[in-house]
C-alpha cells in the first residue's frame, strides 16, 4: 500500500514571497507522483506530475516539484507567489506497476496555501 504525508496543513505567505509545500510518500513499489490543486469553489485540477526522466518537473504557472527517491519526497515550490495561487494543494501517488496499476490515486491530507497582499 502507499501513503502520502503533507507536512503542513496551512501555509500563509505574502505575495511575491517564495513558498514550499512539503510532501513525503511511502511505498513498497515504484510510484508515479502528482500535485493537484483545488481553487476555491472549483474542482481538482492536475498541476504537475512525475512519471520518469528528469526528476524536476514544472507547471505552466511557475510551480515546480522535484522527485527525490532517497528521501521519498516530492516537494512543491514556487519562487514568487501571486494572490491567485491561493488554493488547496494535494500531493498524490499511484503505483507504477504496469497493467495492474489501475491508476488509483492515494492523496495526502492537503495543504491550504493562502497568499496575502
Amino acid at each position, binding site marked *: 500500500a502507499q501513503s502520502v504525508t503533507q507536512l503542513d496543513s496551512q501555509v500563509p505567505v505574502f505575495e511575491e514571497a517564495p513558498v514550499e509545500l512539503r510532501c513525503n510518500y511511502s511505498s513498497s513499489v515504484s510510484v508515479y507522483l502528482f500535485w493537484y490543486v483545488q481553487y476555491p469553489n472549483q*474542482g481538482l485540477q*492536475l498541476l504537475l506530475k512525475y512519471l520518469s526522466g528528469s526528476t524536476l518537473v514544472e507547471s505552466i504557472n511557475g510551480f515546480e516539484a522535484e522527485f527525490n527517491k532517497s528521501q521519498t519526497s516530492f516537494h512543491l515550490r514556487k519562487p514568487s507567489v501571486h494572490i491567485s495561487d491561493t488554493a488547496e494543494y494535494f500531493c498524490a501517488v499511484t503505483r507504477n506497476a504496469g497493467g495492474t496499476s489501475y491508476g488509483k490515486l492515494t492523496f495526502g491530507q*492537503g495543504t491550504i496555501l493562502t497568499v496575502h497582499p
Partner: protein
Amino acid sequence: GAGVSQSPSNKVTEKGKDVELRCDPISGHTALYWYRQSLGQGLEFLIYFQGNSAPDKSGLPSDRFSAERTGGSVSTLTIQRTQQEDSAVYLCASSLAQLAGGNEQYFGPGTRLTVT
C-alpha cells in the same frame, strides 16, 4: 470540450434513505473513478471502472455502497440506508485507459451529500 459532469451538485437526505449520484465522464475516457472527500478522512478512493467492469472496489466503505457503469460511459454511485458519516463530497474522475497508471485524471465538480 465538455469536462466531467456530476449530478446533483448538492443532495440533502434523511438518515436511512437511499441516494443515487451520477457521473458523466469525458467522451472517450474508458477509465472512471469515484473518490470521497470528507473533513475527517481527506480524499479517499472508492472504486475504479475500466469500461463497464470494476476491477478495483477496494475503497467502498461498506456493502451499503455500490456502483455501476453502463455503455462504458455514465456511472451511478448508490448509497443505501444513508448514515450521517456518509456526508461528504463525492468526486468522479475519468481518464484515458490506464495502461501503467500515469494518465491524468480529470475530476468533476463533485456532489455534496449531507445526511441529516
